[in-house]
């Protein structure tokens, strides 16, 4: 047998690979029933946990999933993270192997499959590419999603909570149309896993706050205190007793970096107020009176 592939064989090989990828992704997916209308999709995360989209869980009780082999099982809500539109369910006796998450980030142009289980009786899928990588994105309730994947694969009704999978069926993101006006987005695999681990561990995701109001300002050359960045965040209010006040931040400061990352607008700052930084003393740099000042602010946790 020849080890070369003819052009005609190639189409067949690609077709078979994509069907295999859909089958692999679908084997680790359930249908999620948590709203009156269209059921949605969920990814099996561990032996008894299912990751899905927050916005498809419209109630806290009377939740259920349907396994690929057609079993309907009761599910309990473990936790929600509206900022990433992810939610975690616990399902006893799930008996479905977990989904494989990609170890490396998605790339623009990469071929992807959107896979969902909106109907009983088999998965659905659509083909596309990674159209853009973006973030931060201000999502519902003013929360900020650090990163997202945009795709031109069609998210059919009920695909939210399902995988955006690569050509091996590995999860590169968790699909949702609930973040930005119905646009087909996916929460990148690494971020989705971080959120999922937080939800599994404590039922919520730590998101921090400083207790300031601020607005982005241009930094004219000569007023950058020797920095190269052209904008920063002008502090227009410091809440009394807040983490920022305790750290010595005052009205009129221009915040230019936080934990070593440049801060040019409010989204930059929001994206940094997550995870390990919450509850920790974090170095911040402000321009005050034309000179750079170093502060240490212990990030507060939003209740």
């Amino acid at each position, binding site marked *: 047998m020849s080890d070369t592939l003819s052009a*005609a064989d*190639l189409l067949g090989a690609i077709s078979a690979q994509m069907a295999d990828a859909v089958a692999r992704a679908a084997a680790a997916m359930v249908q999620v029933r948590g709203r009156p209308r269209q059921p949605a999709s969920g990814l099996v995360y561990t032996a008894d946990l299912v990751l899905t989209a927050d916005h498809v869980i419209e109630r806290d009780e009377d939740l259920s999933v349907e396994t690929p082999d057609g079993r309907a099982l009761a599910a309990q809500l473990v936790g929600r993270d509206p900022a990433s539109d992810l939610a975690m369910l616990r399902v006893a006796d799930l008996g479905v192997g977990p989904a494989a998450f990609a170890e490396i980030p998605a790339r623009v142009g990469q071929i992807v499959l959107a896979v969902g289980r909106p109907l009983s009786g*088999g998965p659905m899928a659509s083909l596309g590419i990674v159209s853009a990588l973006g973030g931060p994105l201000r999502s519902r309730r003013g929360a900020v999603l650090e990163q997202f994947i945009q795709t031109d694969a069609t998210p059919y009704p009920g695909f939210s909570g399902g995988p955006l999978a690569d050509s091996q069926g590995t999860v590169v993101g968790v699909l949702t149309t609930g973040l930005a006006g119905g646009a087909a987005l996916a929460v990148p695999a690494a971020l989705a896993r971080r959120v999922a681990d937080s939800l599994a561990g404590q039922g919520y995701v730590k998101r921090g706050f400083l207790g300031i109001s601020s607005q982005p300002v241009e930094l004219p050359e000569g007023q950058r205190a020797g920095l190269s960045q052209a904008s920063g965040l002008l502090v227009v209010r410091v809440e009394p007793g807040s983490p920022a006040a305790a750290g010595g931040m005052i009205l009129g400061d221009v915040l230019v970096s936080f934990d070593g990352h440049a801060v040019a607008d409010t989204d930059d700052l929001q994206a940094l107020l997550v995870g390990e930084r919450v509850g920790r003393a974090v170095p911040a740099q402000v321009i005050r009176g034309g000179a750079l000042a170093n502060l240490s602010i212990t990030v507060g946790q939003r209740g």
Partner: protein
Amino acid sequence: MTIDTYPPATMLGAAAADLAAGVLPSVVQVRGRGRGHGSGVVWRDGATVMTNFHVVDGLGDALEVLTLDNRSLPARLIAGNPRLDLALLAVEGGDLPPATLGDSARLRVGDLVFAVGNPWGQRGVVTAGIVSGLGDLERQHGEERATYIRSDVRLAPGNSGGPLINAQAEMIGINAMIFGGDLSVAIPSHVALGWAGRIPAM
């Protein structure tokens, strides 16, 4: 062309172009007296064309098919089934190259598919996608359930009646409907084959 001499995407492009070139002569435009444009696919004997019932419904007896090489051939309705949305036309002087039939019962979700037809009257347009879903679909007006192939190939009015082709260049469906602008629905070729087999000999 072999994969060790050309990059995969170059190979893919060439393979898809070969597939399209091979299938296009089997696809015709179906129309009535100067109006109503749909698509059709040359059926097994080369003298008949399979299309959707809704393409020819109401067009009367004066049908014609327009071939890829711009021949206009008179056609007449042999049989039609509004429930399956299928119609079979006899083409006068028909010696057209029939499409090769595949086995639509063996399709899998994710399989590569190509639609060929005449969207908005534009001749010989090929679009690509994958099988998005298989299984029952609730029909409107209380019709009985039937199995359809759903796909993400881009279709537009005028594609109706044209073939859905698999990666082996075989016809596995007749494109029939579009839902919500981005879900295309095709009648499996094995359903068309079964129906055609039950039509009494002409």
